[in-house]
């Protein structure tokens, strides 16, 4: 408790409050702009933190990072274009809600969900850091493989169309992820002799191509009717009592999923948001509502990615393990001031650690207060003719993609993937399972091969190790459940057909 008081003392200084506000404000905008994500913004801001004290620097970069998760859902809902990769899944139900004239409600509820997820994530960061650290350390290659297999099976049902097409997309995602240098052997695969493919395709390139560019292409051909209700009153943003009631549990479940996957290096908010969506669809009484504007389908992933970005600070600060490229930059901002993150950080730099943690709360409050009045502004964006809006969006995507690694080649790739995404739409293949395969595929491969090296080729540890065994058990149960319900519906339709035939 003393620590928290110390933390608020640090975070509430005018200086730090100002940097927190700048961070979250910038984060929100960066999040809203499709294609430009926290990674680009944080790396552009890094040189400034050089001249700031480390606490203020980390407060600002952190603000950009979690702020972008708030803003990212806005363009997912209004334009069917994800602001960042971790908001891609919010398109699935957010955009249909906007088409049904519920854009205001969707934006309001995602802000609330983000706040709930973020705040609970911070509580976990404060209370459970030692527990989470030992949990994260207990996660070896075998546990990763089992968790990712479970995730993949859960996510295979994420789309709406035929499960077979979903599986095909997961496989295509895995294949795309094979491009580039192989982590385990150093061999380069499918690079066609190009140095630009050496490091493989970047997640942002794939996400923005499939979700962003392809949406722009398909809007050229289909003359979309403009949304009528461009003006949003505070009242029209208010969800109905029923909507609030059905959103509470999804938010909490999303937060739980986000808090588990946030601290695991490599998974982060994107995996968390996809899996919490898959979980909601699985526990829902009527899964067919998903993809048509189910409010659970936006609340859960938005709570999840915000919980994940907050808990992702646990391994970063307490172990010095950055879970993502964005986190690595934040570590860099500390290292440049001669501070090495690790177990000693909390005791040796307690004002920094607690000050930053306290600023997260203040930042989340700022974001809530900032985002609700902005909803009206965002919705009025829809009044802009698409002939002006979409070229601007394409430009932003190009800027965002280029800024990741200053590679013009990536712009060509995002365009190519946009065309692929458009063709997939025509053939009714969904991009969401592809993205999941793209993220989880290499994680499974790398960890499986690590496990094989460590266990000397023995498969038994996957079952014998308690966490891994448990996860695999749940995966098997899930397969049985899915096959049972599929089998039942097949039998039902067959009997119905035979009855009709008579």
């Amino acid at each position, binding site marked *: 408790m003393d620590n928290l008081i110390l933390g608020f003392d640090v975070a509430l200084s005018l200086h730090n409050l100002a940097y927190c506000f700048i961070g979250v404000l910038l984060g929100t905008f960066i999040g809203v702009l499709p294609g430009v994500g926290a990674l680009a913004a944080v790396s552009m801001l890094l040189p400034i933190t050089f001249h700031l004290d480390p606490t203020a620097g980390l407060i600002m970069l952190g603000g950009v990072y979690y702020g972008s998760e708030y803003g990212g859902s806005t363009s997912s809902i209004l334009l069917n274009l994800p602001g960042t990769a971790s908001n891609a899944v919010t398109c699935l139900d957010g955009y249909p809600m906007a088409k049904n004239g519920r854009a205001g409600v969707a934006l309001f509820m995602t802000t609330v969900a983000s706040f709930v997820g973020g705040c609970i994530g911070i509580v976990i960061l404060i209370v459970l850091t030692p527990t989470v650290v030992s949990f994260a350390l207990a996660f070896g290659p075998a546990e990763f493989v089992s968790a990712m297999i479970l995730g993949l099976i859960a996510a295979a049902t994420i789309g709406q169309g035929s499960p077979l097409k979903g599986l095909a997309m997961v496989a295509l995602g895995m294949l795309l992820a094979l491009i580039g240098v192989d982590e385990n052997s150093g061999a380069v695969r499918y690079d066609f002799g190009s*140095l630009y493919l050496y*490091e493989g395709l970047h997640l942002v390139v794939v996400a923005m191509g499939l979700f962003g560019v392809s949406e722009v292409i398909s809007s050229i051909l289909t003359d979309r009717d403009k949304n009528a209700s461009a003006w949003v009153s505070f009242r029209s943003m208010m969800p109905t009592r029923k909507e609030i009631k059905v959103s509470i549990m999804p938010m909490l479940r999303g937060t739980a999923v986000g808090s588990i996957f946030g601290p695991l290096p490599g998974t982060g908010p994107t995996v968390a948001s996809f899996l919490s969506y898959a979980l909601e669809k699985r526990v829902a009484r009527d899964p067919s509502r998903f993809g048509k504007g189910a409010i659970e389908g936006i609340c859960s992933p938005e709570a999840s990615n915000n919980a994940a970005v907050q808990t992702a600070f646990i391994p970063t600060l307490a172990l010095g393990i950055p879970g993502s490229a964005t986190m690595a930059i934040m570590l860099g901002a500390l290292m440049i001031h001669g501070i090495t993150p690790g177990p000693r950080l909390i005791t040796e730099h307690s004002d920094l650690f607690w000050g930053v943690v306290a600023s997260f709360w203040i930042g989340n409050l700022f974001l809530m207060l900032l985002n609700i009045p902005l909803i009206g502004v965002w919705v009025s964006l829809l009044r802009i003719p698409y002939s002006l809006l979409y070229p601007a969006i394409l430009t932003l995507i190009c800027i965002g993609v280029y800024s990741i690694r200053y590679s013009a080649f990536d712009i060509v790739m995002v365009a190519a993937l946009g065309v692929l995404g458009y063709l997939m739409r025509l053939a009714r293949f969904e991009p969401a399972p592809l993205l999941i395969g793209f993220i989880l595929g290499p994680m499974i491969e790398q960890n499986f091969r*690590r496990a094989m090296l*460590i266990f*000397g080729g023995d498969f038994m540890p996957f079952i014998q190790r308690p966490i891994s065994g448990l996860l695999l058990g749940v995966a098997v149960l899930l397969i049985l459940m899915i096959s049972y319900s599929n089998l039942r519906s097949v039998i039902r339709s067959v009997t119905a057909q035979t009855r009709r035939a008579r």
Partner: protein
Amino acid sequence: MTIRSIHAFSVALIASFAGLIAGPTRAESSLPFNEMVIVSPYDAGGAADMIARKVADELGKNLGVTAIVENRPGAGTIIGSNHVAQAKPDGSVLLLTATNHVINPATRKSLPYDTIADFTPIGLVVSAANVLFINPSIPANTLQEFIALAKEKPGTLTFATNSVGSGNHLSGELLKSMAGFDMTHVSYGGGAQGVAAVLGNHVSAGFASLPNVQSYFQDGQLKALAVTGSERLEAAPEIPTVAESGLDGYETLSIFVLLGPAGMSEETEKTIENALKEVMSNDEIKQFFSSQGLVVGDLYGAEFAQYIEAEIKKWSSVVENAGIEKQ
């Protein structure tokens, strides 16, 4: 928000970023340009990037130019290095790269540039010895005991590093071939992830720079066996070197070097070299680097050029002995 204000916003955003990166205008320059780009072929945020930023900042001040860091990561530093190899050799584009640069000729089938002929060596900025550490559950307290254990139970020990063909991986391979024991390499994609794997007892051993693991030694969560350099570390004099532990002649270092494109005039090279010398002899700068476990290099000109050639030779013989296939 209208489309115009979106445009205005993005223009303002970019302009403000550009302004912030450029920083204040500096004193009159002794070089024929006002802006210097130091290319870091690594992602933003890592050790190499941090060093590049510190050097850019100080070098810029000293030379009276605005020096900025440009991250051009990719293809194991080859993309960034190639960019500099093809740049105009007037000193306005420099490369701050690391150990990968001298390992790449050994591990890659082909490079788009010649590692020696296409660059002008300026100086060894900093270097660092690494520490070999193990999980405390491994029944060994010294490097000799560890090697004896590995020989006694072949196939049971593993070591984690950031990637295949990295300096740390090859440090392990050199150790194995010099002492004649077996230990399986496991690549973790990042140095910190490798340390975590040893902390969690998934892997037996690892290599890392001292600041990243020192607190774990003090808490007893990891056990230090040996230092890869030829001398003990100032910050941890209790850890013996590998050479002391019976493997005479063993030395591997992580190095961070400043290079320019080939064909720089001697005058330009000397101007930058002297500026670097001046910057690096500053006590405050030395202190900054030593807090990160880095030792100021103090190798310039012809001596430095010879050093690079020797490093390239050393790593290529390690790669050959370890039987690592060229990619």
